[in-house]
């Protein structure tokens, strides 16, 4: 996704879900019909959006993305529709919104399930009429934008709970592309590993870095809460550390350790951060070359953060809003950390 805009990132895999996704993309990319792309975080929803764009007649026109979860409501509204000078305090000059910027091209509304109901109503109006106005202006502007929406929510559930408008859902859900979580398509894991190893490190085109079959099997059994993005991160770490066993063990161990620990402090049984890192550096000497203080620091910090967050979560019985308050971080940051640091709730939750 960080790639240049000239080519679409490749969709990797041979599972029925990936094959069907590619087929759908090829079939609908030229229709300009609204599309919802669903799936858990890290499965590659944006990659699908980029592929749709690159296969559409709108290729070369703007591809604009906005994350509806990252901004507070008022700010999201002004980002989407823009504003006139003096529309509100601080609006010192006119600003164009994403709908204007995406005119003729594609607007990807990421995390649409997190959009507030009042903004959903405004979005629905734009989708129905093809018109919108900047904040502080009554002039309706025409927009010709292909709307792609992505979400990790079950929108049907959100509709039942009155968190998502049914009429907006139907308008967006003209076409739906669902990406399965990685744990449901383990047959994609070897192909993904092969692809990303070659991509990240052309030096390793020889087979010396390729893992044993038994390690691949372990990775196929792992539940990948962070999906393909997590797999990418794991592979990047393997390229730095050059040690498959170490990292695969760490992944599987953290799952088991956290599943076993309820109130007793499993973390105290684990070696200290320093010895852990030193141990991992203690392996074959050539791996030391790939070590850096920066990397050790990051690993140490992750470890400390993970322990601190797990501790607070245990103490709050996994009440995540309470835990976020105690830690003095936002709820969203906490959720991100839980998934990024692979903190797993004890079985009883």
């Amino acid at each position: 996704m960080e790639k240049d805009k000239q080519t679409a990132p490749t969709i990797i895999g041979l599972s029925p879900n990936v094959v069907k996704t590619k087929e759908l993309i090829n079939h609908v990319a030229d229709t300009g019909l609204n599309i919802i792309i669903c799936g858990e975080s890290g499965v590659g929803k944006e990659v699908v959006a980029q592929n749709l764009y690159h296969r559409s007649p709108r290729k070369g026109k703007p591809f604009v993305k906005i994350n509806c979860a990252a901004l507070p409501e008022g700010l999201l509204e002004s980002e989407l529709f823009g504003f006139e000078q003096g529309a509100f305090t601080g609006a010192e000059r006119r600003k164009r919104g994403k709908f204007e910027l995406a005119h003729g091209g594609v607007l990807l509304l990421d995390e649409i399930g997190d959009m507030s109901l009042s903004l959903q109503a405004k979005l629905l109006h734009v989708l129905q009429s093809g018109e919108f106005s900047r904040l502080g202006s009554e002039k309706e502007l025409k927009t010709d934008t292909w709307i792609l929406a992505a979400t990790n929510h079950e929108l049907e559930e959100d509709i039942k709970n009155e968190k998502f408008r049914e009429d907006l859902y139907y308008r967006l859900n003209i076409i739906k592309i669902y990406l399965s979580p990685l744990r449901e398509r383990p047959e994609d894991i070897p192909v993904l590993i092969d692809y990303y190893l070659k991509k990240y490190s052309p030096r390793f085109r020889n087979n010396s870095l390729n893992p044993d079959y038994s390690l691949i099997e372990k990775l196929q059994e792992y539940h990948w809460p962070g999906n393909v993005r997590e797999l990418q991160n794991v592979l990047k770490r393997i390229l730095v550390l050059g040690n498959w066993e170490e990292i695969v063990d760490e992944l599987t161990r953290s799952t088991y350790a956290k599943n076993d620990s309820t109130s007793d402090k499993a973390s105290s049984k684990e070696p200290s951060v320093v010895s852990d890192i030193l141990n991992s550096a203690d392996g074959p000497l050539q791996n030391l070359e790939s070590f850096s203080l920066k990397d050790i620091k990051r690993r140490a910090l992750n470890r400390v953060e993970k322990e601190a967050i797990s501790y607070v979560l245990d103490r709050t019985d996994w009440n995540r809003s309470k835990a976020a308050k105690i830690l003095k971080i936002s709820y969203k940051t906490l959720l991100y950390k839980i998934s990024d640091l692979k903190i797993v709730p004890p079985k009883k939750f």
Partner: protein
Amino acid sequence: MEGVEMNKSYKLLIIDDNKETLSMLHAFFSKKNYEVVSSLSGLDGLKLFESEKKGFDLVITDLVMPNISGVAVISIIKKKNPDTPVIAITGWGEHPEALASEAKADLILSKPLQLDELEVSILDLLSIKK
């Protein structure tokens, strides 16, 4: 050529993700001497529509289906072949119905279907087409 077509049976494409509805419609229209091609998904239905060289006389599609909805099917068919009449059938609320008429469905019917009435509507649409 017209004379030949008079004797020829009409060719229908029916798309519905509900097996029972689909086989019911298939059986009904086959019995009435229509040539019926049916599909359980929007994507397969579109593929059939595109690969059929001689084209279909009329398309019947369900509206609420996974992946490619009936609304998408109607839009894509009407874009490629505006003269092909399309009937939308739905068992849901009014939202997809509004979208179906925006997508230029020729007729929208709600389930449960009265098959005889459906056939009358089909013949109406086919006669308008002629």
